[in-house]
């Protein structure tokens, strides 16, 4: 039963990792941009939630109503103002610029909030649990997982059933020809980054409710996000969810063997997948 419990808890944890990863997966899929600042943007989302909660007294989950649109606008502006200038045949400029952005965000957060760990208080929901088939499941992890599934299902639906999704796929396939169809790729990329940071805001708030965070917390989230994307296969959002779950389950199983193995077990699972199937478990089948 303990092992079953570990697997179930790990699966739920995987929901959070999938939220970390979804934005990365989206922007890599659409514009082949590897965003080194992604983890710091998640933490920025946590701080944004904290500021909203402190200023208004809102419940952190209600603060999503503010944090999500603010991060979305920030994403659009960031893409149009800076990141679009770095895109081209060379992969290095976007890496360097997002690395610089990562440093800037960390230092700005340090200036504004000090290095002290912060946490958002979500009240009773943090400790509430339900009993399912003899397992005690936390309401917050369950909710996080449900939101992750909902976000990925919504993104997937948008991708394959809306004009915006069609535009994303077209620009991703062939930027020049998409431009001929009247799609301004700079604008489309801005929308993609806006969408990615909207998801990042959700990830940041769930992170900030679940654990304490500080300005340097981004690097770890970036690693988990990357690992989930790579395990699942590039450019496949459901694969990213599966990748998050595999990472989460490996960690809880590792912790079951020895609490010190938790983090290591996740990285080992990642390395094994990378060695055995470098393209990930569920790479996008390009048509």
């Amino acid at each position: 039963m303990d092992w079953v419990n570990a697997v179930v808890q790990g699966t739920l944890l995987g929901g959070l990792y999938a939220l970390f990863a979804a934005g990365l997966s989206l922007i890599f899929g659409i514009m082949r941009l590897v965003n080194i600042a992604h983890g710091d943007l998640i933490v920025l989302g946590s701080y944004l939630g904290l500021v909203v909660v402190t200023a208004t007294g809102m419940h952190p989950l209600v603060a999503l109503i503010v944090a999500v649109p603010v991060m979305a606008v920030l994403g659009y502006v960031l893409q149009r103002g800076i990141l679009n200038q770095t895109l081209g045949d060379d992969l290095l400029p976007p890496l360097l610029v997002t690395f610089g952005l990562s440093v800037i965000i960390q230092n700005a957060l340090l200036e504004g909030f000090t290095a002290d760990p912060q946490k958002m208080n979500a009240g009773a929901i943090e400790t509430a649990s339900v009993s399912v088939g003899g397992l005690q499941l936390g309401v917050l992890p369950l909710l996080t997982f449900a939101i992750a599934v909902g976000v990925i299902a919504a993104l997937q639906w948008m991708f394959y059933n809306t004009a915006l999704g069609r535009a994303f796929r077209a620009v991703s396939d062939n930027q020049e020809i998409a431009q001929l169809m009247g799609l301004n790729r700079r604008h489309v990329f801005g929308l993609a980054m806006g969408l990615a940071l909207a998801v990042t805001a959700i990830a940041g708030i769930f992170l900030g409710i679940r654990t304490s965070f500080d300005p340097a917390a981004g690097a770890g989230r970036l690693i988990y996000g990357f690992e989930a994307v790579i395990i699942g296969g590039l450019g496949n959002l459901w694969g990213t969810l599966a990748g998050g779950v595999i990472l989460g389950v490996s960690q809880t199983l590792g912790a079951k063997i020895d609490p010190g193995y938790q983090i290591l077990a996740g990285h080992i699972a990642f390395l094994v997948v990378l060695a055995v199937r470098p393209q990930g478990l569920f790479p996008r089948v390009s048509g």
Partner: protein
Amino acid sequence: MPDPLLSLSALDAHYGDFQALYGVDMTLMQGEVLAIIGANGAGKTTLMRSISGLSQNAPNQITYINQPIGALRADQVAGLGIALVPEGRQLFPSLSVEENLLIGERMGRKGPWSLQAVFDLFPILEERRAVASTSLSGGQQQMVAIGRALMANPDLILFDEISLGLAPVIIKSIYDALPGIVGSGMSAMIVEQDISKALSVSDRLYCLQEGRVALEGASQGVSREAISAAYFGVGS
């Protein structure tokens, strides 16, 4: 004489240090069909790229309805009603046949072309609307590429080598569809390797040779000798 729909004046084009077009002058009247011919590497695709905005030029080198468009981006040029059927078809592989057509409609311009009108022109596409565009034959892909451009309801449509690599029977069916397209008053520029095809569908022709206009004239009036001289650069 009325103002031309499109005019090029002293159009140059470069790829890095390499110059591909030298001072090209060209006019196209409303409703006219121009044929652009020339040997491989003469600069025909480069000309199409310049007009459609895929490569940038000085604003006044290209004028469309009395408006300088040489420096506009391709999406802006598309919005003004110029559509390109690119060389090699270039469909979007992750989009279905129907989605490839629908994406052409984005400009929201009014006109006779709709999904149904394209399906009426090329009925095979309606049957295959849900499949991935990559699973079509070359000829069917070319029909999608033409349909995709028509969906924008352009005033001027540019065809870059529509018959390249296609079987003769397919080429015939595509050319049979052409009068239905340009008959509605749409102007067109057709790049074509097959000179008799080019002459039969066009009002006037331009022959490019190494980036320069070597010959221009009414399609019915030019002699075969003049064309071969302009094409291969012999005898001049």
